[in-house]
């Protein structure tokens, strides 16, 4: 290999790529524009709708209760509940989402509760509908409070301590570091995003520099120059790796900035701290480097098989699923890094990155994952070089 010649090829490919609007779009504009937009829209929508739901009173219907005026009055005066006149099809109205919930107060409720007889209040609601769930919670809280008040009054009337109601209390405390809480929720998705983006970032240039070059008829031109085919592949390969790394780093920065920006909107009032250590992110980028190399080499070798850019797309698109699958499995809870998963490409990097972002550094496993991915990458580079030396691949008809 002659690095000097490979670099001549690399510099030319870089100049060529930078002048291509399609590259600029896929490599720079999409990650830089897409993430802030995504976070902005999602963040705005989430806070807007969630805020609206908690602000407005829940519309409910009450069945019965005519002989329990105290309960009804208390319900009417609750600020977060609005009672509309009862209709016989109340249940249907709940499932049609016309009202949020329906309450059934049994006959003689107030009288029997005062007499110490247990009665049952029924609430109909629509599970998983945010506004209906909210109405249900409000009603539950209302009746819980009402029950507590009745119990206290009953105890007081008998001269007993209200403490009897609650002989002891339970308090929970979180001991996990804030970064680990954030990592569990969010950390798995960072390597996932970088893995996908480093693949898609490499896709376009890899196809353009191989099948695209065949299609435009420049392959024969460059092959008739003294540059050795190995140097030619290495030059192109360096370009694809660069595109891959630039795309993922730009996306990462863009993601980080837009996340920090919309964080307040997302987590207002939440106790979860979503801070992620920048040095962990840097470690993840290093761990992902050999993966970008692997992607670049595989993409070059596969795309070279095609005669045209379009044909290359049909070969490369299925590979996206091959990449997404292990990356998604890595995000799933319960899948952990061990001496078995450390050997599965892509999945191992996804898992090790999740650990690192969570603040867990298993040095031996990290080294193993890095080493394995480097080995896979080396095999892929050798395969790409071999492909470029095959006449039947270069001149497929």
């Amino acid at each position, binding site marked *: 290999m002659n690095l000097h010649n490979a670099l001549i090829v690399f510099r*030319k490919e870089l100049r060529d790529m930078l*002048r291509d609007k399609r590259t600029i779009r896929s490599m720079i504009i999409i990650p830089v524009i897409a993430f802030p937009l995504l976070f902005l829209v999602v963040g705005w929508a989430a806070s807007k709708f969630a805020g609206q739901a908690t602000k407005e009173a829940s519309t409910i219907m009450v069945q019965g209760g005519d002989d329990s005026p105290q309960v009804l009055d208390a319900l009417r005066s609750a600020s977060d509940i609005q009672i509309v006149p009862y209709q016989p099809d109340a249940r249907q109205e709940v499932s049609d989402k016309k009202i949020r919930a329906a309450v059934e107060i049994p006959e003689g409720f107030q009288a029997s509760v005062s007499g110490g007889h247990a009665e049952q209040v029924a609430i109909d609601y629509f599970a998983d509908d945010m506004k209906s769930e909210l109405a249900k919670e409000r009603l539950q809280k209302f009746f819980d409070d009402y029950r507590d008040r009745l119990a206290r009054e009953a105890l007081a009337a008998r001269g007993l301590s209200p403490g009897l109601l609650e002989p002891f209390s339970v308090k929970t405390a979180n001991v996990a570091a804030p970064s680990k809480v954030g990592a569990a929720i969010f950390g798995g998705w960072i390597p996932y995003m970088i893995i996908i983006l480093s693949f898609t970032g490499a896709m376009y240039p890899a196809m353009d520099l191989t099948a695209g070059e065949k299609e435009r008829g420049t392959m024969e*031109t460059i*092959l*008739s120059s*003294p540059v050795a085919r190995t140097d030619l592949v290495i030059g192109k390969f360096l370009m694809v790796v660069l595109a891959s790394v630039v795309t993922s780093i730009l996306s990462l920065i863009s993601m980080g900035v837009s996340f920090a920006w919309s964080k307040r909107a997302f987590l207002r009032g939440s106790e979860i701290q979503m801070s992620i250590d920048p040095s962990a992110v840097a470690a993840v980028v290093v761990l992902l480097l050999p993966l970008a190399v692997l992607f670049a080499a595989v993409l070059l070798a596969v795309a070279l098989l095609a005669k045209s850019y379009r044909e290359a797309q049909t070969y490369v698109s299925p590979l996206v699923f091959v990449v997404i699958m292990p990356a998604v499995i890595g995000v799933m809870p319960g899948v952990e890094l061990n001496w078995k998963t450390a050997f599965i490409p892509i999945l191992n990097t996804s898992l090790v990155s999740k650990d690192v972002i969570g603040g867990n550094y298993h040095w031996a496993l990290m080294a193993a994952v890095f080493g394995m991915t480097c080995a896979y990458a080396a095999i892929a580079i050798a395969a790409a070089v071999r492909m470029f030396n095959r006449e039947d691949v270069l001149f497929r008809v």
Partner: protein
Amino acid sequence: MIESRELGKVFKDKKRGEIRAVDSVTFTCKPGEIYGLLGANGAGKTTTLRMLATILSPTSGSATVAGFDVVRQSTEVRAHIGFLSTATALYDRLTAAETVQYFGRLHGLDDATIDRRMAEIFKALDMEEFRDRRCAKLSTGMKQKVSIARTLVHDPPVMIFDEPTNGLDVMTARAITDFISQCRSRGKTVIFSTHVMTEAEKLCDRIGIIHAGRLRAEGRLDELRSQFRQNSLEEVFVAVCGDGQ
């Protein structure tokens, strides 16, 4: 100097089995001479020239170009040839000057030499006006000039042209044929393939007629005419190739 000895190429095809594209082709092309490889489409012209340019490697026989073996010294061979065909396109997003510069660098020339060579060539081919225009924006004739400049930047002693006028209009084709004869007058070894008889008659010192991968006849134009007792090259061509079908 180009020397081809029993040069052969067999392609393996899944459906059709082995295809003998070029079969024992032997010829010599000397400096200051234009050798024309004449043949119908699919006769084996392109494969022969690609083997001489080391883009394909032969499956049998051997060849030397400018004294270097096409298999063992392929890099040296490529450093001593200028290869031009209608299939050798240019990079759309590079300018004319950048294209020539890129190939100059790949030939291992330093920037000062490249600049000097480029100035000479651009002046000779009247290319100054579009030197900084991207190749995508150039007319076919201009592109052809850039291609010529690319093949000349390292001043190669051997020129290989594969159907260089194919698909070009009369004026552009004429510029190419003029350029080919200039190469001869500068003492370069020139080989070119064509299926246009008039072009071959006008340019070539010696002609080889290739048919179904084999060199069927070879010689000077007058030799071929008298050997086959025909008046024109076209008649000779038909006499040589017609019998096999």
